[in-house]
Every structure is written in C-alpha cells, then in structure tokens.
C-alpha cells in the first residue's frame, strides 16, 4: 500500500471544503448598516449574545438547549439533547445592508461513544427564515 492513494482521497476532500452553502436566509434593506445592525440585535432579543463584533458585522448568540428531535436506543428514550445558536452577519450592500442568518445546531446522546461530544446536525431552515423575516418586518416598520 502506498501513501499516495489515501492522500489523494484526502486532498479531494479538502478541496471539496471550498464549496459554499446556498439558500441562506437573508434580510435585505435599504436602511443604512447602523440601522440594520441595531435591528438584528433587537430581533435576537430573546437570546443572550455571546459576540457582537460591529466592525466585522457578526452577531452570535449563546447556545440554547431545545427539545431533541431524536430519541435514544431501541426503546426510544427521551435522553438525547439538542442545542442551537444563531450567527448573523450584517454586510453593507450599496447604500443599504443585508443581514444573513445562520443557525448552528448540534445534538448529543448519552449512549455509548456519542456521549463524548456534541455533533453538528442540519439547521432548521424555517427557523432561520423566521428570524430573517422578523428582521425584515422590523426594518419595514422603520420605513425602509
């Protein structure tokens, strides 16, 4: 066995990491960056912010534990856990600004080796879109 075969597979996978995600929930507005930034903070008022870097335009909430969507084991016990957080990126776009909402979601199970760490799972698109829609609604109320 030469090292070339696995290294080739590994390189392909690294390169595939350059792919981008499409279809992210956004709230575009003609309001200036400042106003969109403040609106994004207001729309996340139900969460504790863990980061608010205005220069980079990134807001991040703390993890919030939510009801797990999976059950554990063959007897389907309600012992799994799930958590999520929002990362909102506000960027200047022309004279206005656009806020992109991303939800990170992770799950954990006490069963076996899975108890060792939280694992990423797909986000709920509808929840991302709901946060973006709330931002859009608030921005419209401000007349832009």
């Amino acid at each position, binding site marked *: 066995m030469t090292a070339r075969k696995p290294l080739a597979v590994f390189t392909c996978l690294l390169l595939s990491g350059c792919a981008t995600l499409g279809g992210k929930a956004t709230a575009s507005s003609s309001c200036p960056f400042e106003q969109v930034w403040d609106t994004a903070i207001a729309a996340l008022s139900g969460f504790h912010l863990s980061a608010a870097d205005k220069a980079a335009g990134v807001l991040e909430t703390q993890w919030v534990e939510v009801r797990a969507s999976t059950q554990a084991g063959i007897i389907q016990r309600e012992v799994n856990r799930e958590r999520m957080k929002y990362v909102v990126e506000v960027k200047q776009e022309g004279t206005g600004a656009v806020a992109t909402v991303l939800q990170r979601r992770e799950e954990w199970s006490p*069963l076996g*080796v899975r108890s060792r760490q939280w694992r990423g799972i797909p986000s709920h698109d509808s929840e991302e879109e709901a946060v973006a829609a709330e931002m859009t609604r608030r921005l419209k109320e401000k007349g832009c």
Partner: protein
Amino acid sequence: MRRSAVLGVLAVCLWLGAAVDAGAVVSEEEFEAMKKRLGIVEKELAEVKKQETAETATKAKKEGEQPLGFGSTGSGKLIYAKPFVSSPKATVGGYMDIQYTAAKNSSIDNGININGSRVGTSSSFDQQRFVPFFYSDVTDRLKVAAELEVEHGIRSKSNSGSGIEVSLEFATIDYLIHERLNFRAGIILLPVGKFNLLHDSPLNDLAARPLVSTMVIPSTLSEAGAGFYGTFYPSRLSKLDYELYVTQGFNGYQNDGTPVITAGASLRDARQRVSTTDDGLDNNNGKAVVGRVAFSPMLGIEVGGSGYYGNYSPLNHRPLSIFALDWTLQKGPFELIGEAAWAYATDNSKDLFGNPAPDPTFAGQLLPQRMGGFYVQANYHFMPEALKRWAPAHFKDSSTFTGVIRWDDVNTNRDVAGGPGDVQRLTLGLNFRPVEDAVFKLDYQFNFEDGKANRINNDALVLSVATYF
C-alpha cells in the same frame, strides 16, 4: 405540615419560657409541671409527624408512585431502587450485537488444532459484543462516562486460545472548564483515527470493522491517562475539535521478553488492555502522547489528522509512532468516509538485546517495523415510500436502508509484500435501520489475503444485528 410547624413553634416557646422562668425563682413543682407539659407537646408533635408520613405514602400510592427502597418487593422492581438508575442525572444503557458468518472453505479460525492441523469452520454465530454503559452528570461541570465491554460473552471460562474478554473500553471523568478547554482523565479512547472514537456496532453500517482500524489502529484502543479536549468555531460554518492526552503507552513484549508485535497479530497484542504487566501497569517510565485535530469547514465535511508517540519497550528506547488521516463527506443521502494509518515500531525487527528477531507468524521474515493501510467506504441512504405505505408500523419516517461499498487495504509488514498481514477486502453491504440506533446488516466480503497475487477463496456472507438499548 402546617400543624407540625405550629406545634414545633409551641414547643420552642414552652422551652424558652421555661428557660426564662428558670432565670427567675421557680419552684420545683412548677418546673416539674413545665417538663410534663413539654413532654406532652413533644409526644403530640411525634404523632403528627407520623400521621403526615403515612398520608404522604398513601398519596404516592394513590398516584401510582410506589416509593422504592430496600422494602420494595417484586423481581423486576428492585433494580430501579438503585440511585444510579432512578436519578435523573444518570443514564444506564448499552449496546449489543450478534452476527452469523458463512465463509468458504472453513476459513473461520475457531482455534481448534488437532495433530498440529488447524480445523476451522465455515459458519458460526458470534455474539461479539455486549457493552453496558453508564453516563452521569455529577454536577453541571463534572461528568462520568464508562463502557464495560463483554466480548464473546457466551464463554464462562478461559481456555488456552482465547480468554474471557471483560474490560472497560473507556471510563472517564470530565471536568468542563470552557467549550475550548476541558479536562478528561481515566481510561481514554485514544483519538487515533476517527473509527476508534465511533466504534460502537450500531453506529457502523457494515458488520466487520475496517481492517486498518483493527490492525494498524487496533481498535478498540484505549489507555489510562489524562489530558484536554475542546472545540473551536473559527467561522460561521466551520468547527475545529481537538483532543490531546498523555497516556500509559503500548507494551510490545510479554513479561519474559517475548515480542508481541508481529505481522500476524499486528499491534493488537501490545495494547494496554491486553498487556501482561500486573494490573495493566506501565512497562517503562515513558508515557505516550496522543492527539487528534478534526476540522470541519462546513456541516457534512470533516477531515482529521491524528498522531501517537510512545515507547513500547521495557528495556530500551523503542518508540512506536502512529499517524492517521480520516475523512467524512456527507451530501444528501450520500456519504464517503475513510481512514488511512501508518505505524512505525522502531527496532521491532530486533529482540530486546539487539539480535535479529524472526517473526513467528511469518516464516523466514523478521518482525515488522512498518505497517500501513486505509479504507474507503461509500454509503447511500434511502427509504422507499412504497414500503412506508405498505407496512407503516415497520417502515417509519425514522427508518432507513443503506447501501454500502467498502475497500480495505492493509499491510502489517510493509517491508515485505504478500505476508499474512497483507490483506485486501471488498465488502458490499445492505442494512436496514428501523430506528437510527438499531440496525440489521447483510454484508458480503470478497477477501484477498496474502496479497492480491495469492488470493485464497474465503469470501464470506455476514449477517448481523446491533442495537443500543
């Protein structure tokens, strides 16, 4: 409850009154009368408490909440009186598997040797693993987790060929400091490659473990030690996990100096789990260092790099190094996973005194120094809607079928091609998960042993069931 509180206050008042009166001049008669009154109040208080306890028990009984304790009866009930089961902070569970293998040409080695000739079998059931586990949130920051593995548990006594295998796969105490830095100590699953960290049978889509993850990385690979682990989120989409531990290290020799790292057994017999030292104690003063970094640029893609370095000799400095790369790529129903590993056991080709050491499992060759291998596995998950309509009780939204194809390639003595450890295998598999944590597997293995040039016709059909419970 309120009655007892009132009586309690009354009793205290009486006692205080008595004390205050005692400061004044109190006749002996008055003092005796007070003592009598206090005695009556105490008696009444005890009566009320007794009554309240009985009321609480009756209430619990009415609500079907049978109090559990040593007084509980019934064969199935007593177990739930154990605090680790009844406490909501602890979870007890486990997983088990069973498999049936049908191979060609009696190629399943059952350890029977008659008149020096190996007598194999061509089919066998094997209840390979029964693994109870325990998880407990001692506090918000202190966690305890353990897996106790019983391998091939049907046997009740050891024999010369294969002993009873009962051991802790892992047993760790975690202290959570910060998401980026947490402390872990105990018997630790070594982060060498990804498979060793996710080796539970119900998690894997094929019955047999990858060859590289059993020979070059001899999973289940765990050692006693301590260290740190954590997670970083470098960007909106990415995630970086790391683990770094100092552990006991491999033991490459039996207590009499007989080497155990061979082309036939690979590194398996050098693990601390099977070390012949007393109580699994270290065979030297050197400790091993092991770590893994896994980077996920976005959900569905992860690449990991890991390394292990430690002295395996009791007499001299002979480091064993293992490097591994692993990858996971998921896109919709498709999945591509794999792992590659390389091991270098310095000077293993010499005995402890520097003389050439022949390999007892590979005539005419020296013991191996270099090993390596990899596997690549593609999975496709699907669930025909027609089945869900036809039998909705069995085929639910959480049910899935998975088609699997895996290529294994490993050589446990890279200085020699075509030895007993130079093995390739192609596996085709189909499995059904009624729920995510339970799986029925059907695999067919095309085995290419002793190198591709000398294929032995020992292909095998493997049926397996595994579930968490």
